[in-house]
Every structure is written in structure tokens, then in C-alpha cells.
């Protein structure tokens, strides 16, 4: 009896608490934080949240801060490196204390940007200087600026591909599969490595959207497409390639024990031939090859095996976007750092990445792309918010690891169904969710 009374009290308490949970909105966000014009007048201490714990540890960020201080002498910059960046920051965003400058976690929906971040300028202004601003534009204001963009493609070991007698990039998915088969037959290498266990490398497959059709509006179109996995659609082409690769046993034997760090060494030494990643990975693979005393020049990068009007296409996506906390007490200093980091720090060039500053030259590892006339396309973002909402509601998670993992499972016979049933199921989830999201 006493126990039920206690439970009842608890329940009443719960209801009372939840009733006062809502309604705590945010302050006004109309005042744009502009880059300060006089550096000597900017002062204060700012905290920068970063996922680059490696740069915190090896002193790179400290060096940047020192350089920054030669221009802004009265600003103190502190860094907090977070290993589980996404998870930690998402929880901290429930408070006001989430640094002054931060990278926007992927889990924050676009339409909530104004609640958390200070506007950095109008879209019309900033888009003249920076690429990818439309990824963080709500209304006509921009809330985040990316430092770098990455092109999608396969990182591959040129030596292994040559050994198998393949010297030109495959132009169709079928040709790609044939090439992998040749690698399997003629070399001892694993033709393709999924990195299934770590999971996140697989999420790059979702980024291939737009590459086969060469359509900058590919993502926006998902909002109105009832069956994005129907024959001929981008997601169908992309996921089919993953499915067929695994189904034809062209990937590693046991996907459940893959290891990302080790995969870099395996690719660098030619034990793995190919992985679908982004241009950011090339530097890391070359590093691994160097450490294993192999030739780093054997690491190459090729676009998705599909051509439109005789051209390959590769989607360039922004990496993390940097934003200023709306609750920051030193917004000017924060904005100054953000501006300096993206324009002056040289971080993008050092990592051989595509700088988001318009007019920057392409990095060296994309030289082959340039030579081969690969079109680098930027996806439009007119309906991204809606697409995200449908994606969450459907529990598909185009950029989550469960979705490609399931495709791999079915392809290798570890889960029931076949390619058609998987796609049909995804189509149904998608169109059902479209009905519930308005």
C-alpha cells in the first residue's frame, strides 16, 4: 500500500515537473555579430570547443592562438578538445555553457540554429566570400561557416590496382565491380574494406548522394520523392554498389572485427585496395603508408564510378561548421577568432583540404580530379531542414551507420531479405514519414 502511494506521488511530481519544462525560449537573435574592425579594441577570454584533440595535444592550436594574438593582443583563447565531440556537446547545449566558438554538432537540426548560435552575417554578404554558407542559413542569416570542404570518392592503392591491370578509373558501377573482381583474382589484396565495425566510415556512403546524377539538387529532391530507392535514383545506384560489392564477396571476410586505425595501414601497404571515404582521408592514408615504409604516392583518390555527359561528378560537402555561442559574453572576440581561423590560420591548406574561402586553389591531392575534369558540385540546401526531419522521423538515418550496416548485413546473408526488399522497406519508411512531417 505504501509503495503504491509512493509511486503515485512520484508520478504526480513527474507531471508537475514536465508541465513547467516547456516555454523557456531564447533571447533575441537579430543582432548580427560582425568581424571587429579594430583588433586592438577586442578583448576577453574565449573558449573554443574542438573535436581535434590531436591538434590540442601536439600544440598546433596553441601555435594558432599565438599567431592570432599578434593581431588581437587582448584576447585569450582557450581550447577544449573533446574526444566524444558529438555526444558531449549535444548534452552541454542544454545549458548555456558550451564554449564561445564551437563546431556545430551534426545532431542539431538546422531550424534550431537561431536558438543556439549568434548570426554571423546575411547570406547575401557571406556567400560572396565563403562556400557552403547555405548549409547553415536560416531565414536570410548565416549561423555557421565551414573551414573546409571535402570531396567524396574512393581512396585506393594505385599499385594494387595496377597490378590487377586496371589503369583507368571505372566509369560505371559494373566496371567498378569487374575491376574489384580482377583485384581479387590477380592480387592477394582485399578489394574493398567496409570498416563495418567502426561504423562511421560507412556513413560516407550517404554522402555519395548527388554524385551519380550530378545533380546539385539531389538532397532537396528527397523531400518530394516518394521512393528515393527506386531504380535509377541516386540512393539506389549508390547503395546497390555497396550491396553488390559485399554480395560478390569483394569485401573483407569478417566485417564485425574491422578496425579503422589498422585499415589505414592495410591500405597503405596494399593489403586493402579500396575504401569509400572523403578527400580528407588521403593525407591519413599517405601518413600510414609512410610509417609502414611504403610509397605514400601510391595512395590515390577516384570519383564515384558513374558519368554524366562524359564527366565524373564528386559532391563537395562542408566539414564541421564553426559558430558563435549565442550566450557568449565575448561575441566580438569569438567572431574575430572564427574569422582569423578560417581565413588566416592556414589550417585548411595544411590538411590538404578544400578551403571554404572562395577562390582558394584546390589542394594537391585533388589535382588528378582537376586533370580528369571531374565536376565538383555543391548541393543546394533549400529543403534540407525538411529532408532532415523526414530522415529522423523515418528512423532511416541516411547519415547514420545503421543504415549502411544493414545493407551490408543483408548483402552478406547475415540478415533476412535481399536487395529489393531492403530498398522497398526503405522506400516505405521514407514515404510513411513524409506523411507525418509537415
Amino acid at each position, binding site marked *: 500500500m505504501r509503495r503504491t502511494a509512493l509511486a503515485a506521488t*512520484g*508520478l504526480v*511530481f*513527474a*507531471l508537475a*515537473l*514536465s*508541465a513547467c*519544462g*516547456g*516555454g*523557456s*525560449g*531564447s533571447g533575441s537573435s537579430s543582432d548580427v555579430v560582425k568581424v571587429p574592425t579594430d583588433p586592438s579594441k577586442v578583448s576577453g577570454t574565449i573558449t573554443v570547443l574542438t573535436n581535434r584533440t590531436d591538434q590540442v595535444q601536439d600544440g598546433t592550436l596553441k601555435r594558432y592562438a599565438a599567431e592570432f594574438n599578434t593581431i588581437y593582443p587582448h584576447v585569450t583563447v582557450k581550447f577544449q578538445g573533446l574526444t566524444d565531440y558529438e*555526444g558531449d556537446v*549535444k548534452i552541454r*547545449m*542544454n545549458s548555456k555553457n558550451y564554449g564561445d566558438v564551437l563546431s556545430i554538432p551534426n*545532431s*542539431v*537540426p538546422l531550424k*534550431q540554429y537561431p*536558438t*543556439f548560435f549568434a548570426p554571423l552575417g546575411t547570406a547575401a554578404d557571406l556567400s560572396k566570400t565563403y562556400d557552403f554558407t547555405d548549409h547553415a542559413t536560416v531565414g536570410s542569416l548565416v549561423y555557421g561557416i565551414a573551414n573546409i570542404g571535402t570531396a567524396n570518392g574512393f581512396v585506393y592503392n594505385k599499385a594494387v590496382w595496377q597490378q590487377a591491370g586496371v589503369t583507368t578509373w571505372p566509369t560505371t558501377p559494373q566496371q567498378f565491380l569487374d575491376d574489384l573482381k580482377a583485384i581479387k583474382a590477380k592480387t592477394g589484396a582485399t578489394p574493398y574494406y567496409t570498416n*563495418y*565495425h567502426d*561504423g562511421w566510415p560507412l556513413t560516407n556512403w550517404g554522402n555519395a548522394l548527388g554524385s551519380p546524377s550530378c545533380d546539385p539538387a539531389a538532397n532537396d529532391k528527397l523531400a518530394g520523392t516518394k521512393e528515393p530507392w527506386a531504380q535509377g535514383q541516386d540512393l539506389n545506384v549508390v547503395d546497390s554498389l555497396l550491396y553488390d560489392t559485399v554480395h560478390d564477396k569483394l569485401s573483407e*571476410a*569478417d*566485417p*564485425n*572485427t574491422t578496425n579503422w586505425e589498422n585499415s589505414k595501414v592495410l591500405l597503405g601497404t596494399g593489403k586493402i585496395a579500396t575504401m569509400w571515404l572523403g578527400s580528407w582521408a588521403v593525407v591519413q592514408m599517405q601518413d600510414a603508408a609512410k610509417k609502414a615504409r611504403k610509397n605514400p604516392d601510391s595512395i590515390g583518390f577516384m570519383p564515384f564510378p558513374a558519368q554524366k555527359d562524359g564527366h565524373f561528378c564528386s559532391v563537395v560537402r562542408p566539414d564541421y561548421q564553426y559558430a558563435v555561442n549565442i550566450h557568449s559574453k565575448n561575441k566580438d572576440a569569438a567572431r574575430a577568432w572564427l574569422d582569423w581561423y578560417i581565413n588566416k590560420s592556414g589550417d585548411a591548406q595544411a590538411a590538404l583540404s578544400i578551403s571554404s574561402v572562395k577562390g582558394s586553389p584546390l589542394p594537391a591531392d585533388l589535382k588528378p580530379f582537376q586533370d580528369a575534369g571531374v565536376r565538383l558540385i555543391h548541393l543546394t540546401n533549400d529543403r534540407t531542414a525538411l529532408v532532415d526531419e523526414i530522415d*529522423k522521423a523515418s*528512423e532511416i*538515418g541516411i547519415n*547514420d*551507420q*545503421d543504415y549502411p*550496416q544493414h545493407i551490408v*548485413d543483408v548483402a552478406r546473408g*547475415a*540478415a533476412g531479405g535481399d536487395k529489393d526488399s531492403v530498398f522497398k522497406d526503405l522506400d516505405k519508411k521514407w514515404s510513411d514519414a513524409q506523411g507525418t512531417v509537415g
Partner: protein
Amino acid sequence: MSAPRTAGRTPPARTLPPPDAARTHPRPPRRRPASRRRGGAWWFTPWLYLLAPLALLVTFTWLPVVDMFSYSFTDWDGISPTRDWVGLSNYTDLFTRPQLFQVFWVSLFYLGASAVQICAALYFATVLSFDTRLRNLFKGLLFFPYLINGVAVGFVFLYFFQPGGTLDTVLHWFGAGRHLWLGNPHLVNTSLAGVSVWRFMGLNMVLFIGAIQSIPPQLYEAAALDGAGRWQQFRYVIAPSIRPIISLSVILAVSGSLSVFEIPFIMTGGSNNSETFVIQTIKLAFNFNKTGLASAAAVVLLLIVLLVTWLQRLLFPDERVEQS
């Protein structure tokens, strides 16, 4: 029996007068300091001592649980500063999607493993309670896995189960072929449950050893005189004596297998048919921003565990154990 003048108090069976404040005739306060007077200003002393543990309990256990209950009635996405009251719709959503409960099949593997675990623990506890050579060493060896951090266990076994890894190598000496211990969807849950047995068996064993040691030794002697063998001693002396501990272990095992999380989350991330209810809940909350629905799922899991425990107590009530 000297009845005290203040009625209603428990009469101490001593000749000393009770140190009661409500005495009528004045008396110099010589024996007891004033602060120890019952019913005086210091009635809250015990609560003062309880303050720290209660504060911790409320802050870190009860408030989060209450919060969880309250989230389960909202559509909160885990980030937004606003959330809307949606009543029971999370619960209806949950119960109209039977596939969300299919993951409980996975729990059966862990339930089976728990049975194995308890039997093995009973066996080792019994053997190690008697005079066995090097028994402290064996106790240590068997208990050791429980002391290792769950994440470390996960990583160690990841290598153990790798194709051509430790397990395959050892089995190869006996002529067995290779298996994809984690890759084969029919084998993965057995492998993971095996890790769970390895990790928690030692804890059960230590609990059992403790209980077995409280059995008076003359019972064995008497049983031996009556001609009882080792098995009969176990069956008729040890097992009935430690019944409460066994039933506690079973309750823990059942609720544990319903809410398995650590080992499969670290080793497979719930992929390849190894997803458990808790992993699914985490994914709902953190991958799909459905904190409300996930909270409802957590509440439902709590209720299921409570229900199973209650059923178990109903079917196998605890009897008092007489040991004399």
C-alpha cells in the same frame, strides 16, 4: 518490571529509571547531557547523518528518474530548449510498433547464459568452499574478470573472436575449423553471452561462497555421519541454506538479461542481429533525436523488469531458512 511513569514508551527491562525528559519532578541533569533528551531539539540528529547519502540518492537517482518519466510524456528531441506535452502518444507509438519489442528475443540468449553462469558459479563456490588445494588462487582467478572494466573486456574479446584470433587458434589445435564468431548472425549472440558469463560468473561465485561459509560446519558432519555423499550434502544442506542468495542471483540475472548493454554495444554496436532493447533505446534518443520516445521505452523496460521480478517472487516466495 518497573513501569515507567510516562505511559506509552517501551519499558526497558532494567532497574534504571528511563532517561525521559517528561518527568514531573525536578532533578539535576547529572546523568545525561541535555542534548540527548528524547523529543527535544535534537530529534533530527539521525537525519543529519542521512543527509549526505540522501542528497546523493535524490540528485543522482531519483531526480533523473523523475525527469525520465516527464520526458516520456513530451516530444523533446534532446536539444531544443522547448518541448511539448504530448500525453500518452509516445506510449501508443511504442506499443503499436511490435518490431521494437522483437529485440527481446536477443535477451533469451543472455537468459540462457545466466542459467549457465549461476550453475557454474554454484559449482565453483561449492568446490572452493571445501579444502581444495590453491583455493584462494582459484577464487582470485575466477573473480578477477569482474574487476576488469567493461570496455576493456569488450576490446579484449574483440581480438579473441577475430577470424584467426585466439579462439580460432586454440580450437584449431583440436582440429576445429574457423568460425565468424561475431560475423555469423546465428553465433554472435552466443559469443556475446559467453563474454557476459566469463565476466559475471566470479561475482555470483563470491556471493555464493559467502553464503556457504555461513552454514554451520556441524551440519556437514552430521550429514556425513548419516552417510550423505558430496552431492547429497550439496543437494540437502548447501542448496536449501543459500536459497535466498540463489533467488537474488536469479532476479539479478533476469533483469540483467533484459537490459544488456555494455558488452554488445562495445563489441558490435548492436549491428548484425545483436541489438538489445537498451541499445535500441539509445539509438532512438541519440541518433534519431526522439528523446521522448526513448524515455517512454526506458519506462516500459523498467516496468517489465518490475513485473518479471514480482512474478518471480509470486511463484517462488522466499521462505525463511532455518540453519540449526
